[in-house]
């Protein structure tokens, strides 16, 4: 782990897609977010897993990333869980607008 890897041993990157399916237990283990927190985040609508009850919920890779992001904001910045959907929406919107500005500026030549 700590050893540098020489050239020629490139680690293949795979695009994270929304098609992988994890159960609540797997989602918690893989994301490092406690089960109770996931249940709270689902109940306020941060993500909407498929399936009617926690035992039958399925989560995608992308949803795992969203869970981790919500958890970091809660843990590091004390964002209240029930404000989380609004905060995430606003952050996404800011990012979208920043991209738009960057694109416009990047497109201007000389």
């Amino acid at each position, binding site marked *: *782990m*700590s050893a*540098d*890897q020489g*050239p*020629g*041993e*490139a*680690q*293949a*990157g*795979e*695009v*994270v897609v929304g098609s992988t399916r994890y159960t609540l237990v797997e989602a*918690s*283990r*893989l*994301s*490092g977010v*406690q*089960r109770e927190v996931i249940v709270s985040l689902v109940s306020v609508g941060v993500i909407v897993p498929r399936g009617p009850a926690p035992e039958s919920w399925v989560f995608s*890779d*992308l949803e795992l*990333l969203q869970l*981790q*992001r919500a958890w*970091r*904001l809660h*843990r*590091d*910045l*004390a964002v209240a869980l029930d404000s989380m959907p609004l905060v995430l929406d606003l*952050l996404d919107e800011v*990012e979208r607008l*920043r*991209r738009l500005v*960057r*694109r*416009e*500026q*990047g*497109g201007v*030549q000389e």
Partner: protein
Amino acid sequence: MKFKDYYKIMGVAPDASPDQIKTAYRALARKLHPDVNKAKDAQARFSELGEAYEALGDAPKRASYDELRAQGWREGQEFHAPPQGARAGGDPRRGPFAGGGDGMDADQFSDFFSSLFGQRAGRGRREAGPQRGEDIHHRIEITLEEAYAGGERQLQLQLPSDEHGQTVRRSLRVTIPKGLVEGEVFRLRGQGTPGATPDLNGNLYLEATIAPHRLFTADGRTVTLDLPLAPWEAVLGAQVSVPTLGGPAQVTVPAGSKDGQILRLRGRGLPGTPPGDQHVRLRLTVPPGASAKAEELWRELAKESAYDPRSHLGSQP
């Protein structure tokens, strides 16, 4: 290692009250949090802030840090660790806010911190079962060419080694998958922090941002190019060679094209299922300076043409 000025990092006076330190931490954390601040150095600055707050927000740690300052240690001086016995106690790992979570993701506390306060205690267990490593999130700027064709990159990462709290710098060669778009995340399995066994290693997640390009802009998989045209090309139509990410393409500009009009080159944008298009946005330009002959011809054209570009503005006074 260099002596760090934690007061400066937190932007507080050395005699700041615990409340002031807490307030300063909250204000800066909100500004620097990598989920909020997309600047490249946000992660590093946020980690530094976390470290400073860890030292100053805890009374015993702050006292021993102040002791060193009282001995004359200042920022940037080459610092040698005090003997073991002089190390501060204090809560090994308090969450930055009430509730004591298990700390920030990027536990990149410096050697300076470890030499003062010892190696940090391991994190609280999260779920029963063998310990899984942490996922690590980073942002990576890729060129539009790399987004189009994929590529290889040598990354320099600062990673927390798991239980010793010391920073590990790791150089990693990664394959960038083909067809990434702005904001898309790709994963390197097992390249996060180590778990109890190799198959429990965390993952490394890299979020792609696309660097500004000299010619193209990208919106999702759609790539846009501004194509300058001479007035006669717009009026009469033209065959033009247009750059695309996959090499030049021949494009027919129809007669009577307008400024700002977009021609679509299907499937010539970023690859994917389905692949994106390239948009060619026509830009009408005016030739710089005209010869006497050319000017004469323009005048003739103006006389010949009954075109009023301002008819929709109503009658002019």
